[in-house]
């Protein structure tokens, strides 16, 4: 089954590679060729692959996907851009659209370049990052590399501060059976600082497939706030991965909001150098028959690192959520402080969650803790609210909002918080506004 899907997928995309940006550069062609070979070798992950044990790909495998039409008419983005940050790169069906983007006003030392352009121009930074690199061990990561074509390259020189948050908006418009492979690369120089929000949306519906990869390189002392909002169409498939390399004394903050798609998965890998730190927040909402899977892996490779992970999920109807979080502390990584927590709120007897927090520790002087909870709405909290006059439905909605809102409240930037909130609010039952000050 998986072979046939892989072959069918490749058949659908055949000839595409030659048409992709940068095909004339030998290193780009080699990268795509090697990645394609790797994808064929790996095949689609099946039940025997531990990391995919709880996520079956049958629904995806039944489909055939064509390349996305890059020249599609620009949809009306009015609603999507309400409350969006002013600095933005907009992609439609995976292709950069300059006419919808706004990239002016960057500080000196910050460089933004659509990946298609960077590939065509044989960009030095890009070549340094990608040429001859290790091909992804994940089949879909390899697939993304095999069809690397567009996305965004952001490069920050040392000490460069990007004061405004940058939005990368990936809009998929209606039309079944197409696949896009966005690739984003952020190279943050020493002591640089930026906030980047990736948003994947499918406002018109459809059952397309987004296969997105993001690579983040944080040089010593750099700070990156990285938000990721997955709000794909209800029929869509979204497989995403983020790899962050956080060098000495750098700080990475990831805030993930996973709301849409019939099947959604995010693999988040963070590598921490000496004294580096990361905060990983995640919120997933799943209802009806949605399936959402988050796999996180934090590697403490050197001493004095700190990681704090907090993932929460709200699972309703017959939806299913998977969380697997691994913290790996290498022998050299003494004085590591690693915390991990996963909390799940089940709203229906048919909802299901599989959670697997794991610590793998090879150092002996570390502070590590992890935990997971799966529960229903707290009857004591329900009673407290009802005793104040709120009816059962209002109390229930308020508590669900509150459970989810805890993670929205942790978004530091006011504008981004409002932007995230808008889409979250529409996904939660009740839709009662719950903004601060309301």
């Amino acid at each position: 089954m998986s072979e046939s899907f892989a072959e069918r997928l490749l058949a659908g995309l055949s000839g595409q590679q030659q048409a992709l940006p940068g095909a004339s550069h030998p290193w780009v062609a080699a990268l795509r060729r090697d990645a394609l070979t790797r994808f064929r070798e790996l095949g689609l992950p099946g039940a025997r692959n531990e990391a995919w044990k709880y996520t079956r790909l049958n629904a995806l495998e039944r489909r055939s996907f064509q390349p996305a039409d890059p020249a599609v008419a620009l949809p009306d983005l009015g609603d999507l851009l309400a409350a969006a940050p002013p600095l933005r790169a907009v992609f439609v069906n995976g292709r950069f659209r300059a006419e919808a983007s706004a990239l002016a006003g960057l500080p000196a030392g910050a460089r933004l370049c659509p990946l298609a352009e960077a590939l065509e121009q044989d960009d030095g930074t890009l070549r340094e990052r990608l040429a001859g690199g290790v091909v992804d061990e994940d089949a879909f990561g390899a697939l993304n590399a095999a069809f690397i074509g567009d996305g965004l390259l952001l490069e920050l020189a040392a000490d460069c501060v990007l004061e405004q948050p940058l939005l990368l908006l990936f809009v998929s418009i209606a039309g079944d059976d197409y696949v896009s492979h966005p690739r984003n690369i952020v190279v943050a120089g020493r002591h640089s600082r930026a906030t980047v929000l990736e948003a994947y949306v499918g406002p018109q519906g459809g059952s397309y497939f987004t296969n997105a990869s993001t690579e983040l390189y944080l040089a010593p002392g750099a700070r990156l706030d990285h938000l990721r909002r997955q709000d794909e169409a209800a029929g869509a498939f979204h497989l995403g991965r983020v790899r962050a390399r956080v060098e000495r004394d750098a700080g990475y903050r990831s805030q993930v909001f996973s709301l849409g798609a019939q099947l959604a998965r995010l693999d988040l890998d963070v590598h921490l150098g000496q004294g580096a730190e990361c905060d990983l927040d995640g919120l997933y909402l799943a209802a009806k028959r949605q399936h959402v899977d988050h796999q996180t892996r934090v590697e403490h490779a050197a001493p004095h690192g700190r990681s704090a992970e907090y993932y929460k999920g709200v699972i309703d109807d017959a939806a299913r959520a998977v969380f697997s979080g691994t913290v790996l502390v290498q022998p050299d990584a003494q004085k590591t402080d690693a915390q991990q927590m996963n909390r799940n709120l089940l709203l229906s007897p048919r909802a299901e969650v599989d959670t697997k927090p794991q610590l793998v520790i090879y150092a002996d002087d570390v502070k590590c803790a992890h935990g997971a909870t799966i529960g229903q709405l707290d009857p004591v909290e329900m009673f407290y609210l009802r005793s104040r006059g709120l009816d059962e439905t209002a109390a229930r909605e308020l508590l669900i909002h509150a459970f989810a809102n805890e993670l929205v409240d942790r978004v530091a930037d006011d504008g981004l918080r409002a932007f995230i909130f808008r889409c979250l609010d529409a996904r939660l039952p009740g839709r009662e506004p719950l903004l601060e000050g309301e």
Partner: protein
Amino acid sequence: MLEIRNLHVETDGKPILKGLNLKVSPGEVHAIMGPNGSGKSTLAHVLAGRDGYHVTDGEVRYLDQDLLDKAPEERARDGIFLAFQYPVEIPGVSNVYLLKAALNAVRKQRGEPELDAMDFMSYVRARMKLVEMDDSFLSRAVNQGFSGGEKKRNEILQMAVLEPRLAILDETDSGLDIDALRIVAGGVNSLRSPERATILVTHYQRLLDYIIPDFVHVLAGGRIIRSGGRELALELEERGYGWVLDQAKAAGAEAVA
């Protein structure tokens, strides 16, 4: 206003209240005292409508209606307020949001329009003064990270905002230092009125130095074994509960473990 007749209540199959009688009229303050495990908090919870209590006999009339048939929110809207012994922390819900939602629910029941944002804020701020809370409380999540004293003051603030007809304070004094106790008592006293009744459930006489009750009842073994005026509380403070229990036993009441 409130009439409890022969109330029997079980929880987890274990009888807690065994024939409790109590009558409360508007304007009165009743203190219910008693040793640990006597059923004081059970009474408070049953009146507020908490799940997990099974009424096996007796009845409770409130404003000439059967109280026990009503959902907790209906009781709240009809003017019953329970100040919790252990106020519940609700992360993610701001104090101001809960106050507004609660006040609007109660006002709707009374046939009053919702307050607009400005009127609401001045209404709430006036009541925050009673319990010496500043504006920063409003944006904080309900009771989250509050000290014991702040939680209890927050309960009194909610009560002041909702203006109940019958306020039930469940061990509101426990765990309070003297300053917090004074603030809480001041808040309660400022709400005393001829239309409003208050039931103080407490283990200690100390609270009654600040909120002077009209009646004091001793609850033991699931029923009220003695009632009196304020002087009964002072006597309990001096002599403990032993003598009341002995007298009750001698009078044929059920022994208490």
